């Protein structure tokens, strides 16, 4: 089933650097959809439209629709705060907040008004297990989160968005600063998570795109060039430019 339907989405930043041009894309529920392509293609911009993080950047013009469960989230009346609780996001550089490990995890819930300790504790354990971090940190939850290694921090950020029990998880090059072992752990966690969640990933390499994609969309300079199942797109691309990029002829 399609979780997200993007219809003819266009966007231009005030400084005119990066933009999206007439993107239409249906994103499947409970699968990993990969948005890939060279830098400046609009992948991050698209991610940031999905949770309306672009509201806080200066956007010159935007048009089109994004339907999540049939509702247009670009509608000005939409409760953006509630929307962002429904859609978790993990950034390229792990952004741990200057709090303890536990504090990072309960932060979003506390903002949402959850005060019951039992609920918070439960969320901490559940989300850490989902992000494959529980084994490594369960004996030191009150240590400052910044003391964790880069890979652990990134999984903590993943756990932090999972603590809010979102429906969709957006990941913007989540492993660009990680070593192969940590990257492997994050990717494995994603494969587990896709049973429950809709995952949209901007990978930091074509190889990662090919490894993780159930569905893949190739972006080039603000346009969606090709979209299809991961298997076929990486082995037998229909578009010439996709083939050239996937085989490393440019990029």
């Amino acid at each position, binding site marked *: 089933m399609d979780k997200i339907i993007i219809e003819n989405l266009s966007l231009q930043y005030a400084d005119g650097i990066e933009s999206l041009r007439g993107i239409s894309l249906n994103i499947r529920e409970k699968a990993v959809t990969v948005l890939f392509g060279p830098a400046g293609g609009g992948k991050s911009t698209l991610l940031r439209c999905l949770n309306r*993080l672009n509201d806080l950047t200066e956007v010159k013009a935007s048009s089109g629709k994004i339907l999540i469960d049939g509702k247009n989230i670009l509608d000005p009346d939409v409760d953006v705060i*509630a929307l*962002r609780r429904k859609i*978790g996001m993990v950034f390229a550089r792990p*952004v741990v*907040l*200057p709090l303890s490990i536990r504090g990072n995890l309960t932060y979003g819930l506390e903002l949402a008004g959850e005060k019951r300790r039992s609920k918070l504790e439960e969320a901490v354990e559940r989300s850490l297990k989902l992000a494959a971090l529980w084994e490594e940190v369960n004996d030191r939850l009150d240590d400052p989160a910044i*003391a964790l290694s880069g890979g652990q921090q990134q999984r903590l950020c993943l756990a932090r968005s999972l603590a809010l029990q979102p429906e969709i998880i957006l990941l913007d090059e989540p492993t660009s600063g990680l070593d192969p072992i940590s990257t492997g752990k994050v990717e494995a966690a994603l494969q587990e998570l896709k049973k429950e969640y809709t995952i949209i990933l901007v990978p930091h390499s074509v190889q990662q795109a090919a490894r993780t994609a159930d569905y893949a969309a190739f972006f080039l300079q603000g346009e969606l060039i090709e979209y299809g199942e991961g298997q076929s797109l990486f082995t037998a691309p229909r578009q010439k430019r996709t083939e050239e990029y996937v085989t490393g002829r440019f990029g």
Partner: protein
Amino acid sequence: MEKSLNWREFVITRLVKASGYSAILFVALIFFFLVREGLPTFWKADITSLLSTRWYPIEEYYGILPLITGSLIVTLGATLVAVPLGIGTAVYISEIAPRWMREILKPLVELLGGLPSVVLGFLGILLLSPFLRVFLDLPTGLTALTGSLLLGGIAVPTVVSVAEDALDAVPRAYREGAWALGATRWQTIWRVTFPAARSGVLTAIMLGIGRAIGETMTVMMVTGNAPVLALKLGSLFSPVRTMTATIAAEMGEVASGSTHYHVLFFIGMVLFLISMGVNIAASSVVFRAKKRAERILS
């Protein structure tokens, strides 16, 4: 060729080094001079007289307590004005204002910081003090409160520009992280940006206090200059005299080498120690915060 280049490098390095060291030298010389002129107070004037509550140098009453409390109450009042106003402004400029507004406000605040204090004192005498006299029904408008309000105004630009820099230095990623978790704008400011900028904001407050305590011209013009012991909250509404104003007003007319002369330098020493204390407190806060960050990151 090679040799002349080396030689130039040598001279320039030395010059830069010398100008760096000169700052230390000047502070040391100033301190030495203050101490040399101030210390004789202890044997020329009575200690009991120094600690009394009466400042009337013509009849050899050198009680400096009214001056110290005068300075403290005016500074306290100024802090109460400058901190909320300054930090509020800094948060607005750095977190809330749209870009065009920020581009107008920031230079404007900095301009305010460059305003000569005598101009503010002038406005204080002509506008603020008559207004306060009528509005609060006081016998005179030249009170500690008048001084506090104006000094607060003087300290605001310092607090704003340092605090705004600190807030601005918080990585955008922190804010986006909080927004993506569904934090409102206010929650992001209060629970993420502000704690992350804490040491810079504390420095801003300390520098603001330092600016207020050392200010002379404005307070001399608007606080009434009556050396009365200010211990109650009510003293805010009566005239006081600060240490800085005393030195400025009396130094020109004192006979060099007299007891009065040495006592004025002694007051200067006290002032120097107080502002040094504020600065040390400020830098130790920053230092502690830095050390904690280093410990965590290593």
